[in-house]
């Protein structure tokens, strides 16, 4: 039994699990960390295009809330077709043709700029459904329940960031906040990791893993977020990732070996902590170090 790793008066700590490359083990690690913490945690699946942490957490769902995002609604009576909105829009979501404005809502990034710049006050927000925000709890360890939430983008929707922001903004009392982030290094990943106290980049020791790790490292450095690397399936592949990390002064927080039992457990939806109990202690210790590091920083 682990002792509590956080003192009650310490502010919440947000740990983002990201990767660059997909399929390196973000969800496996995020769910395992939530279990290994030994204290109540909030786990947020921010991979809204394909949320799958719930398969491992199996929460009891409390609520499924419809989420929307604003797109411009143009009052044709007031619109003078001056084109200010179309000119401002960086996403080509508005055009002026035949003396009237046309909105292509699926291209809109909901920045609200068109509404602000319209000299005729003709633009208002129209809320369109983008998906659901699902909340639940896992009570596997009654002393350390997992407060679970996920964003789930509706089929046909492509703008993930508004739903990721909503998933991050749900209020929670837990002192440890774990984010299972989307892969890649574009807007969804950046929206998910932004504002975190620490980022873990999960990678694999392959040329693909290294290529995408380098992109992810550049991204989190640009965002000025402290980070470390975890190498999954660490006893496979080549030495490229380690060489890169050493050359760039990047901490390797943990190496997880390839094990048939882990793969088998994953395919059943079982947790990493159950499949490789020795890792649970290592993850717990790593969390302790990260959170203490933050305290002394």
């Amino acid at each position, binding site marked *: 039994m682990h002792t509590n790793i956080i003192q009650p008066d310490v502010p919440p700590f947000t740990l983002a699990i990201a990767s660059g490359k997909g399929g390196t083990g973000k969800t496996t690690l995020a769910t395992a960390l939530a279990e290994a913490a030994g204290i109540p945690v909030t786990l947020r699946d921010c991979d809204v295009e394909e949320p799958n942490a719930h398969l491992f957490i199996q929460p009891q769902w409390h609520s499924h809330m419809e989420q929307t995002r604003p797109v411009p609604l143009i009052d044709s009576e007031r619109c003078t077709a001056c084109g200010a909105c*179309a000119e401002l829009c960086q*996403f*080509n*979501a508005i*055009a*002026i*043709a*035949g003396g*009237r404005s*046309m909105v*292509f809502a699926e*291209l809109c990034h909901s920045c609200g700029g068109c509404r602000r710049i319209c000299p005729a006050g003709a633009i208002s927000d129209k809320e369109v459904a983008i998906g659901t925000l699902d909340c639940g709890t896992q009570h596997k360890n009654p002393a350390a329940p997992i407060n679970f939430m996920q964003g789930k983008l509706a089929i046909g929707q492509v703008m993930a960031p508004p739903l990721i922001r909503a998933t991050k903004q749900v209020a929670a009392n837990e002192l440890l906040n774990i984010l299972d982030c989307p892969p890649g290094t574009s807007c969804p990943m950046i929206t998910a990791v932004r504002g975190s106290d620490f980022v873990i980049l999960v990678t694999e020791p392959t040329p693909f893993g290294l290529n995408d790790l380098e992109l992810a490292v550049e991204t989190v450095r640009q965002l000025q977020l402290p980070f470390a690397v975890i190498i999954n399936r660490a006893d496979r592949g080549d030495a490229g990732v380690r060489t890169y990390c050493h050359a760039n002064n990047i901490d390797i927080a943990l190496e997880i070996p390839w094990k048939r039992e882990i793969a088998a457990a994953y395919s059943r939806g079982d947790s990493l902590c159950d499949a490789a109990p020795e890792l649970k202690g290592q993850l717990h210790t790593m969390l302790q170090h990260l959170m203490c590091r933050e305290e002394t920083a």
Partner: protein
Amino acid sequence: MKVAFSATGSDLDSELDQRFGRAKQFIIVNTATNAASILENTQNMNATQGAGIQAAQNVVNAGATAVVTGNCGPKAFQVLQAAGVKIYHTRQPSVGAALKALLAGELGEANRANVEAHWS
């Protein structure tokens, strides 16, 4: 009539660019005076999204009343149609050949987009 041709180069011998939104540029020909001008499209060639919409907007703003191109997607089509711009699809190899075909009445006016919407 001012006609915008999607083109890979700057003169009438240029290849007719099969892409509308991401065409290299447009050659706008005034069929009454035979005067031609170039409308750059570099920005849209590299746009992350909405290239067709913006290209259509630029063509409309340039005062073209007809477009001759290889392919035109649904969003660009919608903008051009709203502005009353006629659209002609053709496989003619060059801008000059397409112009000749247009003037000879060999090109039929399109009443819908001929390719699907796409993200890149």
